[in-house]
């Protein structure tokens, strides 16, 4: 193809368009913030008042809250594309489907990343964790995890957008694929919030990065098949 504009420039336009729509409605961000706050609150009540248990479970609950919120967020991300067949409109404009993939992944990831930052002070309040141990590494873990959830999530939400039972289909497709990434994300988060005498966080960060690259590469290759009708 001879695209009118380069792939990354088109991806940037797709990303900006998603931000523009989100800024206008703020529906998605509001929904996922309240949903994940409720999740964190319920988990903290379920664990009970023991501080050590709360601290030990905080990384897992934080990522569970992000995972559940991501399903809401990813579903909404492709609802706006299926309304009026806007995705088809983009493809016919023409916009390279891979540019749409890159733009949507980082649009979804940015929303999840913002959510994770919003949840951090709440996690401190509810689980008494210490963010000052390795704050930059923690932010990096949250960013890599958000990208890792969004890459396959974007492909699967595009697949399930026009399905009859899309709300059921998305988590069914997505959760099994995300298990290795979430294990790495939870472990990396644990070692940024708790003592890490054996300096394991570096290894988990590399694993997270590797998962991100695998998910991004597979999605980049597959997305044109998903975005275009046969």
């Amino acid at each position, binding site marked *: 193809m001879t*695209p009118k504009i380069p792939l990354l420039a*088109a991806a940037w336009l797709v990303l900006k*368009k998603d931000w523009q729509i989100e800024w206008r409605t703020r529906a998605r961000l509001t929904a996922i913030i309240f949903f994940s706050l409720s999740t964190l609150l319920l988990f903290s009540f379920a664990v009970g008042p023991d501080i050590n248990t709360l601290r030990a479970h905080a990384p897992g609950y934080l990522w569970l809250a992000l995972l559940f919120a991501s399903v809401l967020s990813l579903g909404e991300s492709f609802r706006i594309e299926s309304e*009026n*067949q806007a995705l088809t*409109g983009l493809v*016919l*404009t*023409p*916009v390279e489907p891979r540019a749409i993939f890159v733009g949507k992944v980082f649009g979804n990831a940015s929303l999840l990343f913002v959510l994770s930052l919003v949840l951090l002070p709440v996690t401190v309040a509810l689980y008494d964790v210490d963010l000052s141990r390795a704050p930059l590494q923690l932010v990096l873990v949250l960013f890599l995890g958000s990208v890792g959830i969004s890459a396959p999530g974007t492909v699967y939400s595009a697949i399930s957008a026009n399905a009859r039972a899309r709300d059921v289909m998305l988590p069914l497709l997505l959760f099994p694929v995300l298990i290795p990434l979430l294990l790495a994300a939870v472990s990396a988060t644990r070692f940024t919030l708790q003592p890490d005498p054996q300096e394991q966080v570096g290894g988990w960060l590399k694993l997270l990065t590797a998962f991100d690259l695998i998910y991004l590469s597979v999605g980049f290759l597959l997305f044109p098949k998903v975005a275009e009708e046969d």
Partner: protein
Amino acid sequence: MAEQLAVEAVDISKRFGARWALARLSFGLPQGRSLLLTGHNGSGKTTLLRLIATASFPTAGTLRVLGHDARAGRDQLRPHVALVSHASFHYEDLTAAQNLTLSAKFLGRGGEPNLVPELLERMGLSERADSPVRQFSAGMRKRLAIARLLMKAPKVALLDEPFGELDPAGIKQMEGLIRELQSQGTSVVLATHLVEQGQSLTNERLHLAAGRKVDAS
């Protein structure tokens, strides 16, 4: 010298599940000529337009548009083919101006500051430029879709029921736009139930019944 064809279909078929929406359809449309597509609901008009637009691809047969195979050459084709369909392709939560600006940027025309305001003015949407499309009537959505088609300056324009939802002034304007596109050498494929109106705007006619070409009379 052989006449160059804007659209050439040879035995094309399209199947959705067990149903054949188009069955072994063949026709040719010379460049610069216009085609009226008629037929009852479900006869395959929209499917055919979507195939020509490369929104979908034939299950069997060969479809060539502007000399390119519709599937293999879709990347070369898409900049030159525009479709106004039942689905408007707009983002509901963006304004009319934002939707058109987005298209302009994707088309590499983001540096033309007057492009979007002029198109909105032309389609009578200037006063609602900053309203989200969600608040638009069906007729206004159609006008916006046409503005997007004009922005693309296509070689093949595909219009699916272009008069639907438009008021009398809009219908008159649409007729003028179709004639203007034709005068610029654009091949227009027009699907409509308003046969007389359609015939006055086109050179050729293809009548479909159950996905097959039939005698219009």
